[in-house]
């Protein structure tokens, strides 16, 4: 079948009209009249550059894919990825049980001393900006990782580098599957919550609006407000209206005034 004559199948694929970006992140569009990538990304480009400038160099693709499904609209998963308040109640078993079990201090993530960021609407791009904080690295020996990292910084030896990379990969695997995936300690609870939301939305005739107004009256909403989610929904709405080009997805003054 397709294994025998792959070229035939490829002939039916449309050609990419525009390709842009930088190493590690490529943007492809099949729309010939699309706006330039720089215009599309706008101020969000700075965040992608920062991300890649600090730590994007040694990307490695590993085998083993994880797939799971949920009975919920895809936009709920986007909301889930960018709201600043679901993590602690939804992921109680991760924050209050698992992190405690492995001796990890989660106080910068949960509780009164948690670090709080700001939410931004950069065009249609939703951004949460946080002060740098320790990731809850969930490997078996965070101290070991820190020690090896320090040593690797001083001594340049290919062997040490190789073993550091292997250890780092082990930690990344542990970090990934401790939270993500169908058997992780985080994702299944997200799926459970999103399917619950989807069931709730069956009441749309009685309750036709989903309230995303949190922080609308504030000059600079925090990451626990919902500006970044409004940005996503406004952008989605603009695209559904057939709007081309950039759209302002920030809170407009009259909306802010109404909220105040």
């Amino acid at each position, binding site marked *: 079948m397709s294994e025998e004559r792959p070229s035939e199948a490829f002939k039916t694929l449309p050609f990419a009209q525009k390709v842009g970006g930088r190493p590690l992140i490529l943007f492809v569009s099949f729309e010939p009249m699309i706006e330039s990538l720089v215009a599309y990304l706008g101020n969000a480009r700075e965040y992608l550059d920062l991300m890649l400038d600090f730590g994007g160099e040694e990307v490695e693709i*590993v*085998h*083993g*894919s*994880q*797939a799971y499904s949920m009975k919920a609209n895809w936009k709920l998963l986007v909301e889930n990825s960018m709201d600043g308040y679901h993590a602690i109640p*939804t992921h*109680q*078993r991760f924050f*209050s*049980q*698992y992190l405690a*079990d*492995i001796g990890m201090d989660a106080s910068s993530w949960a509780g009164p001393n948690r670090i709080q960021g700001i939410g931004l609407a950069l065009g249609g791009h939703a951004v949460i900006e946080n002060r740098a904080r320790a990731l809850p690295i969930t490997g*078996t020996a965070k101290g070991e990782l820190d020690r090896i990292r320090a040593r690797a910084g001083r001594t340049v030896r290919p062997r040490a580098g190789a073993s550091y990379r*292997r250890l780092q*990969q*082990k930690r990344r*695997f*542990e970090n*990934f*599957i*401790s939270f993500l*995936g*169908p*058997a992780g*300690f985080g994702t*299944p*609870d997200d*799926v*459970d*919550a999103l399917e619950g939301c989807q069931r709730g939305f069956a009441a749309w005739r009685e309750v036709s609006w989903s309230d995303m107004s949190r922080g609308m009256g504030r000059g600079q909403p925090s990451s626990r407000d919902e500006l970044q989610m409004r940005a996503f929904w406004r952008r989605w709405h603009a695209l559904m209206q057939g709007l081309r080009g950039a759209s302002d997805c920030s809170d407009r003054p009259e909306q802010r005034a109404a909220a105040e």
Partner: protein
Amino acid sequence: MAGPAMPGDAAVFTRGEIEEFLTHEAALLDAWRLEEWLELMAPDARYLVPPLDAPEADHRDTLFLIADDRRTLASRVRQLLSGLTWAENPRSRTRFIR
């Protein structure tokens, strides 16, 4: 209650003993006696579930669905018993295939 023969006993297990052990393990899971089930695991036990697209892979260079060691397994048990694991309320049913 006389427990089943444990791995590590310096004995050659009979088929009957192995069957009894597996039945005992299954009964513990059915009864959701997870702490007792955990006690069956050796200190260096690994609980590995490979990804569906690489079932023969090595967990050291491939992302697995589950790659628990004894400590992670113990935490998994505590999480399941904590009442905070929303996705497992009600809990999954177990099935045994021989």
